[in-house]
């Protein structure tokens, strides 16, 4: 239509939209007037009154139909019809609130779960990082062809020396910066504030400029800050600035004390800024420069892997080109420095992938699970709609007979599905929102969790999901309406006893699908739960009940001399032991389950035949003499440290069982000597203790213990054992530390059980969520099974009555109905098991000590499913077998 016409007809269109009632009345009047005029005309021609009327009506045609045809020419007619369908839909749903509520709740659960997961995946995995041109940012790592650090993946941190070479050689293809995210500082008490331990990162001078971050206040680092002799400078996070310094705009230029050393605050970062990668960083609040902070020689070392390299690719350069260039270079470095702990390759990936790699599989697995649940929900609602259509088949047939258009009737059905889905979608959005709030508080350990939010795209996803649900559920129910024989229900005599079979058949097909999906979900959940159980019951080598750990770190600036540190530790542990309620206490640099903690390259002095540079990469721990008895690590041979093996007499070592076996196969290690590859120290082995694990999901690694009183230790974990309620000891110990040094914060106050729970939170989360989905699916499938069978029994009441009248026994009837119901369950189970066997390998990365084809899980799921199916079928089957044949035959 041309614009002019459109403008011309606009007033009329508006009138047609807004005054439809009046227009209808006017049309009515217009038609009546015509007939009246015709009657009057006929009378004036000499007809009798009745004849005039009949003749006028004959000439006019069917007024009802004409009225409808006229109305159909009005604009907005489609909208009007649709509104009418909606009204009918709402009315029919209101007439059966039980159905409506069930269907809407099912849909809401399905849609809600999907929207929530989609939001997470979009925010965490897909959304670009909030840096300048983030697509060009990459993270680079070292790579060992034969990993000596079996515990770590092949994305190893980068040593400063290697990075220097990389940076020099790639000047024309990328800008490179360094960051080391896993540091901490004691932020001293100032202005009445408590001392606290703050996570921090070391970075190169160009780190922020490579990412493209502008500070809110002050400036970020320059190359000039990144020198050994430079003035101590620190950049603080927006969060710390708000929290600790009350957003003080004058903070720039002020001095704060980190580890008892003065630093000048040169800048404040934007509140949203966070750098997260494989090695964490999300909690970092302070940034200092690497060359300024690292110990001498660290930045030039080819072995001490202390950093992650970040690179901004110059235009036209691909990531793979940069990685292959760096990797070739690292191979060259390895040829020049053949020491075993120098890496022989490099790896790289986009910075976004680096941040979220660990969450990818779990999140996509969860999305698959929610997808299954949604599909099951749709199938279930479709089943309900089919059942309703079947129950209303006579009504529909009558409407069809009275002239209701087939399309119109089908449209009503789809509208009904749409209504259920829309209500479910709205409720689902609320559920999703609530779920996300829960997730964000439950999974604060997850990278980028703070960036989760719902936006337009999520809303679009919700609408699309809702539409798809409406389509799927509606389409199935339309399929079930058995097209051509719309009048068949009317022809069905009241004595037909096989009616409705086709429809039950369709519902059974839906059920097979539902059951298969449920089985897949159950198997997945079973595997994850089993893995989580194994994880939680994993023996880290020490009893985990009633053991409290807390971390202290002595700032070197104040405890410069080793004697000061040792004296502090000795005094502290003596006072802790004297506290009432403390059964035993010890000091260790890193407690079992707390992480890698640090390693050393050790070789055996008595085995001179070893190649140059050869040795064993073993974990190193500092411990006090009573540590082993305090955490109950059994001493296998030899003795523990004595109290005078301290400071310059501290060159004695205790090996873990696996270390002793690896380094001294078939020998007694006691009395032998170990040589430290990096500082040349020699230690005499005095004892062997049992193995402990450094991380709960990792096998134990050979470990070396040396006295913590000496050997340069300035950090310690206090391990306290009590017979009951060990957590109540935390406050007295913190007070005690505060009394000894008010500037010293105590951090990571956790029982070992809590610490393990913290490191297994992702496994717990994944298994619980998938289990919840699986249970929902099982309930839905059982309900579906029950519904179909109850329907079939109702349909076959007459038939069953005849069978019984002819002599069928009750248990025969029971068996008959039961078999009818269990068949789809069995087929579904088999196809579900097959599908599971094909798909569970995708879970492999998430499983701990559990095979993807765990027989017990598969058997358990089979048993559970068959039991639920039998239970769901038993009720209608039992009811069928209790039918009174006479009653049944009379029922119509």
């Amino acid at each position, binding site marked *: 239509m041309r614009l*002019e*016409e459109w403008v*011309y*007809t606009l007033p*009329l*269109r508006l009138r*047609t939209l807004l005054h439809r009632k009046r227009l209808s009345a*006017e*049309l009515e*009047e*217009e*038609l009546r*007037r*015509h007939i009246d*005029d*015709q009657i009057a*005309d006929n009378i004036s021609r000499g007809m009798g009154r009745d004849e005039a009327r009949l003749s006028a009506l004959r*000439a*006019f*045609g*069917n*007024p009802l*139909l*004409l009225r409808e*045809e*006229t109305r*159909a*020419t*009005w*604009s907005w007619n489609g909208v009007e019809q649709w509104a009418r369908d909606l009204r009918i839909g709402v009315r029919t749903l209101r007439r059966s609130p039980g159905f409506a509520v069930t269907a809407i709740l099912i849909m809401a659960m399905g849609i809600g779960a999907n929207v929530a997961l989609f939001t997470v995946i979009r925010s965490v995995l897909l959304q670009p990082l909030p840096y300048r041109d983030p697509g060009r940012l990459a993270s680079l790592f070292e790579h060992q062809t034969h990993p000596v650090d079996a515990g770590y993946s092949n994305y190893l941190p980068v040593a400063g020396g290697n990075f220097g070479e990389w940076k020099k050689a790639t000047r024309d293809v990328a800008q490179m910066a360094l960051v080391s995210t896993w540091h901490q500082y004691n932020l001293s008490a100032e202005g009445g504030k408590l001392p606290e331990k703050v996570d921090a990162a070391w970075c190169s001078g160009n780190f922020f400029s490579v990412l493209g971050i502008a500070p809110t206040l002050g400036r970020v680092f320059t190359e000039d800050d990144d020198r050994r002799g430079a003035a101590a400078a620190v950049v603080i996070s927006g969060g710390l600035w708000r929290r600790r310094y009350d957003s003080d705009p004058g903070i720039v230029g002020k001095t704060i004390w980190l580890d008892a050393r003065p630093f000048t605050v040169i800048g404040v970062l934007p509140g949203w800024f966070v750098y997260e990668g494989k090695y964490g960083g999300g909690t970092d609040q302070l940034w200092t420069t690497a060359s300024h902070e690292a110990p001498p020689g660290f930045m030039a070392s080819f072995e001490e892997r202390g950093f992650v390299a970040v690179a901004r690719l110059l235009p036209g350069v691909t990531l793979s080109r940069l990685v292959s260039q760096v990797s070739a270079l690292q191979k060259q470095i390895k040829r020049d420095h053949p020491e075993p702990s120098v890496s022989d390759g490099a790896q790289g990936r986009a910075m976004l992938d680096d941040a979220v790699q660990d969450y990818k599989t779990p999140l996509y697995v969860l999305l698959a699970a929610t997808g299954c649940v949604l599909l099951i929900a749709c199938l279930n609602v479709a089943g309900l709609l089919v059942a309703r259509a079947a129950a209303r088949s006579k009504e529909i047939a009558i409407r069809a007979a009275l002239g209701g258009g087939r399309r119109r009737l089908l449209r009503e059905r789809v509208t009904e599905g749409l209504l259920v889905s829309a209500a479910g979608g709205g409720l689902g959005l609320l559920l999703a929102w609530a779920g996300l709030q829960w997730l964000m508080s439950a999974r604060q350990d997850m990278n980028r969790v703070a960036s989760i939010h719902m936006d337009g795209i999520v809303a679009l996803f919700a609408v699309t999901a809702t539409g798809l649900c409406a389509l799927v559920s509606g389409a199935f129910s339309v399929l079930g309406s058995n097209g051509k024989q719309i009048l068949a229900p009317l022809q069905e005599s009241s004595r037909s006893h096989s009616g409705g079979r086709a429809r039950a058949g369709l519902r059974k097909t839906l059920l097979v699908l539902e059951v298969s999906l449920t089985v897949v979900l159950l198997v997945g959940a079973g595997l994850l739960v089993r893995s989580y159980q194994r994880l939680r019951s994993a023996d880290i080598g020490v009893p985990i009940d009633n053991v409290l750990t807390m971390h202290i770190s002595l700032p070197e600036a104040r405890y410069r001399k080793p004697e000061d540190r040792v004296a502090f530790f000795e005094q502290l542990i003596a006072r802790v032991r004297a506290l009432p309620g403390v059964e035993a206490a010890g000091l260790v640099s890193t407690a079992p389950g707390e992480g890698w903690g640090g390693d050393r390259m050790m070789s055996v002095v008595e085995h001179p035949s070893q190649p140059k540079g050869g040795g064993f990469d073993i974990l190193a721990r500092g411990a006090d003499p009573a540590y082993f008895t305090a955490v109950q690590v059994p001493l296998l041979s030899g003795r523990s440290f004595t109290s005078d093996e301290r400071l310059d007499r501290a060159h004695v070592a205790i090996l873990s069982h696996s270390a002793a076996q690896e380094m001294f196969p078939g020998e007694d290690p006691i009395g032998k000597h170990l040589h430290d590859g990096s500082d040349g120290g020699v230690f005499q082995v005095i004892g062997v203790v049992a193995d402990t694990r450094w991380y709960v999901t990792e096998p134990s690694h050979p470990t070396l213990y040396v006295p913590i009183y000496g050997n340069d230790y300035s950090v310690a974990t206090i391990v306290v054992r009590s017979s009951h309620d060990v957590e109540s000891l935390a406050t007295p110990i913190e007070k005690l530390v505060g009394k000894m040094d008010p500037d010293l914060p105590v951090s990571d106050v956790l029982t070992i059980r809590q610490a393990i729970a913290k490191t297994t939170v992702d496994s717990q989360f994944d298994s619980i969520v998938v289990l919840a989905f699986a249970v929902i699916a099982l309930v839905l499938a059982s309900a579906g099974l029950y519904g179909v069978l109850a329907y079939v029994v109702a349909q076959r009441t007459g038939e069953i009555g005849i069978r019984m009248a002819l002599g069928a026994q009750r248990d025969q009837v029971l068996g008959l109905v039961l078999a009818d119901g269990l068949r789809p369950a069995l087929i579904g189970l088999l196809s579900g098991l097959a599908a599971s066997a094909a798909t569970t390998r995708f879970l492999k990365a998430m499983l701990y000590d559990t095979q993807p084809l765990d027989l017990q899980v598969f058997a358990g799921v089979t048993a559970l499913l068959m039991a639920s199916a039998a239970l769901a079928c038993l009720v209608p089957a039992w009811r069928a077998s209790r039918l009174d044949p006479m009653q049944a035959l009379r029922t119509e």
Partner: protein
Amino acid sequence: MSKPSDLVQGTLDLLILKILALQPLHGWALSQRLKQISGEVLQVSDGSLYPALHKLEQQGWIRAEWKPSENNRRAKFYSLTRLGKRHLEQEAANWDRISTAISGVLRLTEV
């Protein structure tokens, strides 16, 4: 069925527009004029006038107005709009062209 075929429907529209171009009329009067002019050629029921009238109104070619009729009762009078007038001219020209062409073809004598 009372619904006229497409060809007749199109013709009906044209006839209505032409009649209304001469003077505004209400429905019944229009139907009388239609019968009077076309004789028994247009085999349509009286009522089928109304869907056509309403369609033309929605298209903006005619407008309707409630006015007292000759016997002093309220009736809905239809009249041609400016847009309708232009449309009528176009359609009439079209019709002329086509009917001339068709009659030309039909007048061909076999040789």
